[in-house]
Each structure stands twice: as C-alpha cells, then as structure tokens.
C-alpha cells in the first residue's frame, strides 16, 4: 500500500518492545506509562495536535448543538456569499456551508477510527499467527501481504469502492481490509523477536496455550509500535476518504463530507468565484490530518527507547 511510511526506523519498534519487557520485568509498568506521558507532553506540536484533535472530536459529538442551521435544509439563497446569517455562505442548492462543515467531521472521524480498528485487528491476528507459527503459515501470510502491498493503494481502493458502491460503510470496509499489511509485518517482527525471550519459553514450558501466550504475554509488549502506526493510519484514512469523496467515489451527497464539499470546485467558476465553498473544507482536512500526524510523531518519540536518557 502506498501510505506514507512514517515508521522510518523499523529497529526502534523491536527495541521499544524489548524495553517494555525490561520495564515489565522490573515491575515498573506504571512508571513506564508515566515516562511516556511526560515525554509526550514535552513535545509541543504533539500537545497542540492532541488539543486540536479533541476539539474536532467535540465538534463531531456536539454537531447538532454547534451548527447554526440544519445541514440538509434547502431553503436559503443559492450560492450566497458569507454573511452574519451564513458565516461561510451557502452552496449551489442553498445549504448552509458552515453547518455542513461541522457535520462532515463525523464522517471523517468515523472513517478514520472505523477503518483503523478493522485493519489493526486483522493485521494483529495475521501478524501474530505468522510470527508465532512460522514455517508455511508465515510463508503464506507474508506472500499475501506482499500481494496486498504490490497494489498502488489509491487505485485499488478506487476500483473496489466503485465496484462495491460508493458509500460510507463500504469505504470503511475497503480501507479496513486493505490497510492491514504494515500492521501484520510490524506484529510479526515483534512476535519473532519476543518469542525467543526466556519468559516466553518459560510460558511454553509451563504448558500455556499459544493463544494465551500471544494475547497475555507477547502482544501487550508489541502495543507501542501498533499504537503509533494506528495514529498515523487514522490520518491517512481521513485523507483517503476525502480524496475518494472529492472524486465522487466516496461519501455521496446529500451527506456532507469534507472531500465531497470540494467536488464542485473542479468547475472553474466555483473555483474562481466562490472560494468560500471549497477553501474551508480543505483547511479542515489539513487541520484534522496534521493534528493527528503531530500526535503520532509525539507518540513515536515518546515510546522510542533511543531517546531515553
């Protein structure tokens, strides 16, 4: 897949899980969490990102209270310029742009969180199986991963969504079912390095079942890199949904999405004469995506053992 691979240093993640083990062994689990939170809070942009993200979540939750008008109500002047009544004007069929903008945050968050939840689950299961079982299971799963990663992400999504029918539910499904390969690789790597550790061997000697060892003893220690990957994944899913909706292959009107609010700007008249229709949704996409990316960056630095002093 073509998601911008932000996890540049793959070794970090393995080291970080090793470090977690050390913390665990020493019984310092709580203080490790505290260290991470402190380090995250030191990262100024990450904190700004977190605050912005919380504001966007609040905006989505309280959309009916904040929005000045009903986002679907058609009854105002067409293509009205921004005014006191409509701070961002109205669109081609006379709906309030600001209200649509506010409601659209729900779509973006639903796609981001929904898709990432699906692919983290799939990726974790497949990666754990591949890493723990090894041999042919590893071989098959990794080849399937290669196949999935050989497709240019956006092209496949475009085709799949147009085949399944462009709507919110299908976008979440498609993004979820295509996004797992990086997580699978990540989890497999962690499992491979962890399963040689003495405490895991002790677990095997004690006769614990494979699922118990994986779920209780290996995966908790691989959590940090998964969380970092998931954070960047939410940003990527939001930007992909916006791109699809912009191309008309995503969330369909009348439901407002930041992406489909920009579709009309493909016409030069709208682009040139009604900038209030397309600039605000674009800025909101950037705001949401960049705040999540900054959060991810702060989180990555916070769990990176290389910068532990």
């Amino acid at each position, binding site marked *: 897949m073509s998601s911008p691979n932000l996890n540049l240093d793959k070794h970090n993640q393995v080291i970080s899980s090793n470090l977690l083990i050390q913390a665990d062994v020493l019984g310092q689990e709580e203080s490790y969490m505290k260290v991470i939170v402190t380090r995250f809070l030191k990262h100024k942009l990450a904190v700004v990102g977190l605050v912005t993200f919380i504001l966007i979540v609040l905006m989505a939750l309280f959309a009916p209270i904040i929005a000045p008008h009903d986002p679907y109500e058609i009854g105002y002047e067409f293509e009205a310029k921004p005014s006191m009544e409509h701070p961002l004007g109205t669109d081609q069929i006379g709906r309030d742009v600001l209200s649509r903008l506010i409601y659209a945050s729900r779509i973006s968050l639903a796609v981001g969180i929904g898709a990432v939840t699906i692919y983290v689950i799939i990726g974790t299961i497949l990666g754990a199986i591949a890493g723990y079982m090894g041999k042919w299971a590893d071989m098959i799963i990794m080849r399937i991963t290669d196949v999935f990663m050989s497709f240019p992400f956006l*092209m496949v999504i475009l085709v799949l969504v147009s085949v399944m029918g462009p709507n919110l539910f299908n976008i979440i499904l498609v993004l979820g079912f295509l996004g797992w390969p990086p997580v699978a690789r990540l989890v497999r790597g962690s499992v491979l390095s962890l399963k040689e550790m003495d405490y895991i061997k002790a677990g095997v000697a004690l006769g614990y079942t494979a699922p118990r060892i994986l779920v209780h003893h290996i995966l908790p220690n691989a959590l940090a890199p998964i969380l970092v990957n998931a954070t960047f994944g939410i940003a990527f899913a939001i930007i992909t949904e916006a791109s699809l909706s912009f191309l008309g292959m995503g969330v369909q009107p009348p439901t407002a999405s930041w992406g489909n609010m920009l579709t009309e700007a493909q016409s030069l008249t709208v682009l040139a004469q009604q900038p209030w229709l397309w600039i605000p949704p674009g800025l909101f996409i*950037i705001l949401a995506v960049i705040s999540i990316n900054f959060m991810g960056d702060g989180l990555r630095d916070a769990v990176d053992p290389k910068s532990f002093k």
Partner: protein
Amino acid sequence: MFQYIIRRIAIAIPVLFGVTIFNFLIINLAPGNPVDMFINPNMSEADINARKEALGLNDPLWEQYASWMGNLLQGDFGYSFSTYEPVLNNIADRIGPTILLMGSALIIAYLIAIPIGILSATKQYSFTDYFATTFSFFGISIPNFFLGLGAIYIFAILLPIFPTGGMNTLGSSGGILDTLRHLILPAFVLGTAIAGSMVRYVRSSMLEVLGQDYLRTARAKGLHEFVVNNKHALRNALIPIITIIGLEIPLLIGGAVITEQIFQWPGLGQLTIQSIGSRDYPTLMALNFLAAITVLFSNLFTDIMYSVVDPRIKYN
C-alpha cells in the same frame, strides 16, 4: 548476493500471480456489467445475451481468468468496452504524458527534499530542523487535490501565469514550450506531496551517516565542515536516498490519478477515472495490472539495489 537476487526474483513470481488473481477477482465481482450501460428499450433479451456472449461475459469466472491470463502473456489486454479499441492502444496513447508528469514530479521532489533533508540533519534540533520537519508534515497532510485546486486558484486564476489544465493550448500546434508551461503546476503539486515524505528519509539517512567514525576522522584531520558534510557524508547518505524511489512509486501512482484529474492531464490517471465511470473492465484490469507490476518491480529493484550497494546486509 547473487543467490539473494535470484531468490528475491523467485519470490516475486508467486506474488505476481497473486496480483493477477486479486486484480481479476475484484473487477469481476462487480454487480453491474458494461452491457447494462448500452441497453436500450429496443434491445431484446436475446440481443443482450448475444452481446454478453460476444464479450465473453457469460463464461464461468475461471475460464474468463484463464483466457485473460493467456492473452495477457501474449501481450494482449483485450478490447476496451467503451472505445472498442485495443486496450493496449489506449494505454500507449496515455502513457507518455503520465511518465512525463511522474518523472518531472520525482525530479522536483528530489530537488526539494535532498537540500532540506541535509540541512535539517546537519543542524539537528535547530530552528531549521524544526522548520523542515514541520514542512514535511504539511507535505504529507495536505491532500493532493486541495493543493492542486489551491495552485490553480493562485497561479492560474488570481495571477494568470499558468494555464488551468490540459497538456497543450487548445487549437495551438503545441510544442515543447507550451507543454512545459502546462506541466509546471501539476508537476510541482505532485512533487511537493512526495517531497514531504522524502525529507524524512533523507534526514534519517543523513543522520545515520553523520554518526559514523569516518566522519570524525575526516574532521580530526582538519577538513572543512562543508567538505565533510557535502562530500564525505552526503555520498554515503545518498545511497539509501536513491533507492527509496521504490517506496515512492505507489505514492506517485496514487497521486497521479488525482493530479491528472484536477489538471485534466491526458494520462493514465485520467484514463483510470474515466474507465471507472464507464465500467470499462478490460482497461481497468490492464491499468491495475500495470500499476501493480510497476510497484512490484520497483520494490524488487529497491531490494536488489540495497544488496548491491551495501554488501554488509545479509539475507536468509
């Protein structure tokens, strides 16, 4: 190393096979079919069936796959459902503009990312570094289509320096200069988007090299800092930077689809959107296949290049 290359290629073959199956399946599981689009009230059920039969749409799925695969191996991608021309011809017409756009974008991305990445690494934790990192985050966070629309709004509408789209001025005979004028905006939009993620690779690659002992040696023998950074460090840092081209290809293909659509650039990306609109499966399958092959080969190329330039890497 030679053995590694052979093994790496051997692994790529089943992957390639998987790619064709996956590709075939997604497109053929589509509920609608292209004949539906041509149905008019005057056509009888028999006519429709004859049309489907002619296009091979009534055969079982595996037979369709086998015949598609067989033809593919002979370089035959079938006929487009919408233009009735060979798919290969349609692609051949469009591939030039896409390569031109992607190539220029890649060059622009390198020209932006290498200096910024180096500056940011040599002055780690400085204001410049901070600025460069923030720039790269904006690069990956601004959607391609918004950057494109913004570029058209500013540089074609507010300040009419560049045309709003297309590859040549309508009615003109074209010419290199005219194409170049049309190329600048889309190439910059696509290039900046890639530069964002590239800066991070350059920075981390350069940082890794900067920590090496031989640079300390170079400084110890009194070489000027500029020579140390730009000659001794850069050369070694460039190796991984050049090879990341493989990682950027999928991003480039996805970005091209959107950029071409916005700038009405007559390339493969625009063809993709058109084929989706007209349910032109043979063209879509060929485009998807072509894109997947490109990604597969660029990954193969990256892996092989790594083993060639860095013999320390051992593979099992």
